[in-house]
């Protein structure tokens, strides 16, 4: 639906030119909740502003259903934005804010009123219709900003870290709310965030960005279970990184050999090495504790940290690496292990992921 084709954006100003987007290509599908995830300065907001029309790409193409967007000024693009600061018009009421886009499209008054009422209802703000935007809370402002951007029924809704100003509980509620709005309206959402949890809970697909490039695109499970490279594995969740010998690659699978001499079936890298030293990523909750005899990894228990829902075991492996393992707690469980115990780590088949270099 939206095609971003080899888009590069270089900011020139005082000082050295800055490459905010470096040859980015991605296709966003109809009716998709698509998330751009990355640390600050990775270019995710710039990409959003290029789609909205506030920045012109230095190179590359942006098309919506085959039509070129780059040539159109922002007010002619069928795309609306929810700004990080909400950017509600302070001299208008809640209802006037929501109706602004429709009014600018010169829709008939009756239609504007009807849609505004529907939108107020959709974001549950009907009682607040005649309030000034300064007289409502942050969460309510957020919902008005959302309603204002949704009211003209854009083909695509762009959301620039819209939840970052809200407190924890409100953010949780809004995550569910956003997902509901997306499925009820059927509009394509492009959501920018630096919060990995937000990305995992709401998205159909996620593009992980770093330093102006998209490092990996995939569903939340793909990205979490099978990170393609160290940056992605590190940015999303906790990961153990181990250096291993890659012995063979067969399709999606691969065989690696640990320093302990034990071999294990894991997932092959997306591209790159077929043999030699590689990095293997294993999520802490994907491994479990076992007896040292016959385990693929062996070591000594360094520390046990109780977290309520789960317990973290810090292990120093015989090869010298550190390994963290997480186990779900059960009610009234007594701790069977103690610090200093010799333990083994069990890693199920096809769970470890070899990273591309």
């Amino acid at each position, binding site marked *: 639906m939206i095609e971003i084709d080899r888009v590069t954006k270089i900011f020139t100003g005082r000082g050295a030119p800055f490459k905010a987007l470096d040859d980015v290509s991605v296709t966003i599908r109809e009716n998709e909740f698509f998330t751009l995830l990355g640390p600050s300065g990775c270019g995710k907001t710039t990409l959003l502003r290029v789609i909205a029309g506030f920045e012109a790409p230095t190179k590359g193409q942006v098309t919506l259903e085959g039509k070129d967007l780059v040539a159109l000024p922002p007010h002619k693009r069928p795309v609306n*934005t929810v700004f990080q600061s909400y950017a509600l018009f302070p001299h208008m009421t809640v209802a006037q804010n929501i109706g602004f886009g429709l009014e600018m499209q010169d829709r008939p008054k009756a239609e504007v009123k009807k849609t505004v009422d529907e939108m107020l209802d959709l974001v549950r703000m009907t009682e607040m219709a005649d309030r000034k935007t300064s007289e409502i809370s942050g969460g309510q402002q957020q919902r008005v900003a959302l309603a204002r951007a949704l009211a003209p029924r854009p083909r695509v809704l762009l959301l620039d870290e819209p939840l970052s100003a809200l407190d924890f509980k409100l953010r949780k509620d809004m995550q569910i709310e956003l997902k509901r709005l997306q499925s009820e309206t059927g509009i394509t959402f492009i959501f920018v965030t630096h919060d990995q949890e937000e990305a995992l809970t709401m998205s159909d697909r996620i593009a992980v960005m770093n330093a102006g490039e998209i490092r990996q695109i995939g569903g939340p499970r793909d990205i979490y279970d099978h990170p393609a490279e160290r940056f992605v594995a590190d940015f999303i969740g906790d990961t153990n990184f181990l250096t291993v010998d890659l012995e063979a690659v067969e399709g999606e699978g691969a065989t690696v050999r640990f320093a302990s001499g034990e071999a294990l079936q894991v997932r092959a890298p997306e591209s790159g090495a077929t043999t030699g030293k590689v990095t293997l990523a294993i999520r802490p909750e994907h491994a479990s504790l076992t007896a040292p005899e016959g385990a693929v990894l062996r070591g000594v228990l360094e520390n046990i940290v109780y977290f309520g829902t789960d317990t973290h075991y810090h292990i120093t492996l015989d090869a010298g690496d550190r390994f963290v393992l997480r186990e779900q707690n059960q009610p009234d469980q007594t701790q069977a292990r103690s610090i200093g115990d010799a333990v083994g780590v069990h890693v199920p088949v096809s769970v470890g992921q070899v990273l591309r270099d």
Partner: protein
Amino acid sequence: MAKGFDIRRQTGFTTIALSCFVVLYLPIILLVVYSFNAGDSIAFWEGFSWRWYQSAWANEQVQDATIRSVVIATWAMVISTICAVLAALATTRQGKYRGSGFVFALINQPLMVPEIVTAVALLIFFAMIKVATGYTGLFYLILAHSAFCIPFAYMPIRARLQGMDLSLEQAAMDLYASPWRVFRRVTLPQLWPGILAGAMLAFVISLDDVVITEFVKSAGQDTLPTYMLGQIRRVVTPEVNAISTALLAISVVMVLAFFFLSRSRK
């Protein structure tokens, strides 16, 4: 407990502050007081009376000069404020471009060039046009006043524009507003306090001008300040005090009006 530097505790602070206030306000207070003097002197108090206000009010030359001053100031206010809004938009909404600092200096030229130089230059320039066209009306004064009022109108408008959240205008654009509608519906409503401040400043500055007016005016085109200057050269009576006090009152009222207007909009 250690306290930070407090200027109010420095020796001499109170003395200096008080002397400043005395120098600033005592002459004005005396001027106002003597405008109510019953006698002919501006130095000896002979009792309270409204006679100088009555005499000023009845003076046809004063009436004439007042009307002319207000007409010029109103035109100058309107023209300079429109120019200032356009200039402020061009210098804050265009992004940095080559020579933007130079443009800024050009707009503020009247603040930097000595007024007497501008006055002489305008005198010579307008004299040439007067000879060529034969037109000697008020337009020259209106034009001159508009020009030197621009930077005064420009400053508060620019400050307001710079303080505005750019994302509001982007949001309007994003919601299908054409550039003109963005200005009409979002920029302008937010800009009003700045425009009012600029306009009132321009009005007061124009009302008050002596130097340029004195040089540019044709015969019989006295404004209130140049009329007063002419009077003082002859006989000084408390009538001048009365006119000054009236001008002072107008300025104070305008400043207060602006203050409350801008507060109620927040």
